[in-house]
């Protein structure tokens, strides 16, 4: 017959999915308290153990509950096998193949000798439509989700193809990344299973975005080698088709990889963040010192560069937030991040100040309005994130507030991109 210790050890091993070592220790402490109390009223160890285990609840149910609570950090690989959805390689490959073919369709709709821009304009819409389809299929499609996902795609198609764009204007070029951004947020709806309101799911979507990006970079590296060899071995004629189809298919395949190979990237993201946050912090502090000492050249392109800078810092903050265990007390990484955010804000403040002061001199163009508004949208986000970060490292607030700020702010980016894509062209006469 087993001793009590052996029984408890076995029970612990049944529970281990979804729980951490500390969780198990706490549960064991509880179990032993219960066994002691029951033994004190005359039950044998064996009887007491059975009753105590029964009271704690089923291992599956408990593991699932823990996995849900840990969902942010340890995510889906911790869900007990029964509730883990099938990764659906078949449907992913079919949809990726369809995307790879469909991406060439606009080519046939225009005169081959004519302007290639109408084709380029529609490529992101087509590719993202297939990504949306993939998530609709994966999550179990509902009519409501399908309709709400379809509407932005329809509007984007109409805007891109029916607005009387000036082919030489700035607006037509801006509209492509702007609609792509809007549609990326639209993908969030089927990704999150048809709800926009759940903040935890929004955080999952942020994580998905970052991990998808990492996979895309990895695939692009491999794809580059493949393309180079194809060009050498089979001639350059095939390369254009290969690259376009490959990139379109990769969008869906990368999404599938994120979904099914979660644990691989889960380990990579925090490492990348911890490597690059200090490096960027050093760069930003050096640049701030340099600029404050008076040596900075301001010209028309400066704002674009600083937008890029803010995007990178925002990306680091966002990714660090999504990868961090919210229960850990503030550490040196949080302080370094705060230094990075502070210096970025300082730099951006300098640039933005001179930009606004000289807007009359330069005049407002679509490019400048886009750069300026993007800058403001990011600035507001980072100012508040920096403030919350300061309160967090000084122990006056909890990390949850930072997460909540980022998930609350998410729709602002979508609305900004939608405005740039659909409203700004009207103001600038499509030029």
């Amino acid at each position, binding site marked *: 017959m087993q001793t009590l210790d052996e029984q408890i050890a076995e029970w612990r091993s049944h529970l281990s999915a979804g729980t951490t070592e*500390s*969780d198990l*220790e*706490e*549960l064991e*402490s*509880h179990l*032993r*308290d*219960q066994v002691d109390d029951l033994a004190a009223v005359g039950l044998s160890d064996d009887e007491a153990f059975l009753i105590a285990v029964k*009271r*704690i*609840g089923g291992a599956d*149910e*408990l593991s699932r*509950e*823990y996995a*849900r*609570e*840990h969902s942010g950090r340890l995510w889906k690989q911790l869900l007990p096998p029964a509730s883990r959805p099938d990764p659906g390689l078949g449907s992913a490959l079919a949809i990726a193949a369809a995307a790879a073919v469909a991406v060439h369709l606009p080519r046939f709709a225009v005169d081959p000798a004519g302007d290639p821009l109408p084709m380029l304009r529609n490529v992101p819409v087509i590719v993202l439509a297939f990504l949306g389809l993939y998530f609709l299929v994966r999550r179990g499609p509902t009519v409501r989700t399908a309709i709400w996902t379809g509407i932005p795609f329809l509007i984007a198609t109409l805007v891109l193809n029916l607005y009387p764009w000036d082919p030489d204007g700035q607006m037509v070029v801006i509209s492509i990344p702007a609609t792509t951004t809007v549609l990326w947020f639209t993908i969030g709806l089927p990704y999150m299973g048809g709800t926009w309101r759940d903040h935890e799911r929004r955080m999952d979507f942020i994580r998905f975005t970052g991990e998808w990006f990492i996979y895309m970079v990895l695939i692009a590296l491999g794809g580059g080698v493949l393309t180079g060899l194809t060009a050498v071995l089979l001639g350059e004629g095939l390369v254009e088709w290969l690259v376009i189809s490959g990139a379109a298919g990769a969008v869906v395949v990368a999404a599938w990889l994120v979904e099914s190979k979660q644990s691989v990237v889960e380990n990579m993201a925090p490492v990348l963040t911890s490597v690059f946050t200090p490096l960027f912090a050093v760069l930003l502090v050096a640049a701030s010192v340099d600029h404050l000492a008076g040596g900075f050249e301001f010209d028309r392109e400066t704002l674009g560069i600083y937008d890029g800078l803010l995007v990178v810092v925002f990306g680091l903050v966002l990714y660090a937030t999504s990868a961090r265990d*919210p*229960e850990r007390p503030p550490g040196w990484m949080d302080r370094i991040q705060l230094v990075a955010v502070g210096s970025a804000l300082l730099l951006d403040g300098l640039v933005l100040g001179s930009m606004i002061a000289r807007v009359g001199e330069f005049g407002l163009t679509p490019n400048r309005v886009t750069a300026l508004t993007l800058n403001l949208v990011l600035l507001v986000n980072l100012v508040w994130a920096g403030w919350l970060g300061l309160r967090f490292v000084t122990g006056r*607030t*909890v*990390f*949850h*507030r930072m997460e909540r700020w980022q998930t609350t702010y998410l729709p602002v980016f979508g609305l900004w991109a939608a405005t740039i894509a659909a409203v700004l062209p009207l103001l600038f006469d499509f030029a």
Partner: protein
Amino acid sequence: MQIEKDLVAASATPIVLAILAEGESYGYAILKRVRELSDGELEWTDGMLYPLLHRLDRLGYVTTEWRVPPQGRKRKYYAVTDIGAAALAEHRRQWAAVTRTLDGIWHQSRVAPQGAG
């Protein structure tokens, strides 16, 4: 009498916070206190308390500390924070509104049949 599952789930957070507001405690003792306060009518699956405590920790409502009392085993102690106390006060307001409403209805419906009869 067995209290319905949804009601148990909804009341779990304020109950745990209220117990911790009496003084810091650990899981097993919290559950004993729940049983004692509800005369055994509020039946929890014991294990479910721990994911809930995790959530409260994540939201910053409680602080945690592993400690070994002089006689006894290693336990994780929970204590309510200022944010937790504020959340408890909010829960309390909401529950007070619910019970006030129900009392009102039940008071009237008890009177009504008598008035009719």
